[in-house]
């Protein structure tokens, strides 16, 4: 046998001329945030006898399941309820929902990671979603998001996120503060939102969407 290596015919056999930038886990693509632990057994439906579930959460999940012909339909309402209870969709929260719904945690994780409002990492109790989609951004939403993030930078209890169109372009630029729509906002309102949240007051009472009359002049009758 000759010691000379077989001639290379293919371009892709050649050693890389320069190192390709790689992510921490060794791949060139971002891929999954967490590598799969192959030594672990797959998680099965948690044993209801061993999984403690807060009574209120259990009640809410069971009520949700009873509303649909198929219990799987309750996954989003159930995860919403668990997020409300635990602050975020933690592995513990997902286990509890899985135990009540009799599904695997993996199934619920697949759902929780798909939707923007379900969060699989720790977050603050207060949510501020700043819409940065087209109509709002035309009117300065990107600056507003910066200001909002800066205003809440030191508050662990407030999580600011830029969000896709929240369906309130009539009050652009706007934000949803714990589900309450407020706008049109100015940069100075960022500080006021934080102050109102910390004080437990109604947020920007005079700028809330729910008090806004219809723009159509003919709607008055």
């Amino acid at each position: 046998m000759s010691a000379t290596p077989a001639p290379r015919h293919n371009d892709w056999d050649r050693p890389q001329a320069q190192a390709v930038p790689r992510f921490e886990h060794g791949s060139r693509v971002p891929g999954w945030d967490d590598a799969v632990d192959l030594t672990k057994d797959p998680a099965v439906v948690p044993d209801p006898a061993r999984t403690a579930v807060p009574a209120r959460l259990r009640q809410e999940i069971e009520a949700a399941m009873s509303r649909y012909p198929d219990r799987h339909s309750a996954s989003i309402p159930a995860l919403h309820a668990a997020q409300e209870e635990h602050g975020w969709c933690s592995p513990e929260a997902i286990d509890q929902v899985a135990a009540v719904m009799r599904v695997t945690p993996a199934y619920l994780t697949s759902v929780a990671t798909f939707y923007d409002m379900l969060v699989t990492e720790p977050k603050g109790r207060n949510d501020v979603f700043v819409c940065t989609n087209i109509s709002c951004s035309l009117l300065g939403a990107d600056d507003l998001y910066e200001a909002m993030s800066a205003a809440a930078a030191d508050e662990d209890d407030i999580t600011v996120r830029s969000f896709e169109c929240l369906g309130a372009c009539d009050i652009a630029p706007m934000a949803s503060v714990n589900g309450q729509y407020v706008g049109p906002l100015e940069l100075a309102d960022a500080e006021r939102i934080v102050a109102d949240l910390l004080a437990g007051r109604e947020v920007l009472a005079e700028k809330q969407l729910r008090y806004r009359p219809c723009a159509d002049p003919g709607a008055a009758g």
Partner: protein
Amino acid sequence: MKKILFDRIDEPGLNTMAVYERRGGYASLRKAMTMSRQEVLDELLASSIRGRGGAGFPMGRKVSFLPKGDMDKYLVCNADESEPGTFKDRELMQKSPHMLIEGIVIASYAGGIDRAFIYIRGEYSYQADILDAAIEEARAAGYVGERILGSEHTLSLVLHRGAGAYICGEETGLLDSLEGKRGNPRLKPPFPAIEGLYDGPTLINNVETLATIPHIIAMGGAEYAKIGTETSTGTKLVSVSGDVKRPGNYEIELGTPSREIIYGLAGGPPDGRKVKLWFPGGSSAPVLTADDLDTPYDFDSMAKAGSMLGSGAIIVVDDSHPVLDVAMKLAKFYAHESCGKCVPCREGTNWTVKMLQRIESGEATPMDLDIMASVQEQIIGNCLCVLGDAMAMPIGSIIEKYRPELEAHIEAARERAGTGALEDVIAIPVY
């Protein structure tokens, strides 16, 4: 013009049963229950009302596609309203929830449907609470539930809150989401009318379409068809936003000149600025320019102008904004919201963002615009749903209509970044 949906919409307490009934609410339901299913369906067909959610498919025909028989049939009201620029259903649900409920009960009667769901986007929590209360009131009054108004018609109505995903506004993605899964669109056919929610025949309609039904029954389908144009009947709620003085929802007769909506009702762009481009039907519609402002606002005229009426959301962009910023916002949105099931959309949206970033960073040449345009062409029609198309159509039209501006951008960015003048670059085709 007499308002139909927005008639005295701000009346205090309209969201309660008492005020709604005092104004003649649920009279249409009573009338419908004295008619046969076929008679109700005939009224819907006679009205020629087209779906208000985006596709504009005739509503009555959709109902008639449902198979006859005793199987479980479903009605799903699409209240996901996530098309950027659209916010009409929000106002309707918040201020007059019973109008929607009444429409749902009548539509389900026409289709022989016994289970209905309202899929509302999770962000609309305030509106969802109002709807929940209204459904409870309707149930207590016997308008929803077993043997409605003493008839054989039974309907259960459940409000389902989503959790923030644009794709769940797409009808089959919505069905998967309602079944408790990730909201991935399904292969069609079978269409939902044959095999939809829980594999049963399913009628899916937008909030505005369903809320119009009580009015169609009240005035009669033929009378309703006299409003608007021959192929686009009735009134339409239009959400006007962006660079206009009076953004908001307006109810217009279909066929109204677009200029009248943008300038007359919404006040036009701020003083000293001009309309540069506008989206006639949400951010998924191909853009139109200032030259198209006199196009009548109806389904067919918009299609003829090369765009679409879509969800009825007009987004106005004035001349103070570079067109590149608009394209970038759009592309990033669709890349974020692509569910990842079909390759052309998943990759196409991401690469479009990257190519637009190349323009900004000064690495692009005008050939990038050609590549980008060809990427858009390869998305359209090649996916299970139209999310990819929804990016490809506006981006494609922006490249086509604003090419000189984009080329100027490319040159300016190259100069800024010091990547060399264009004439020194040897273009190597990469595709």
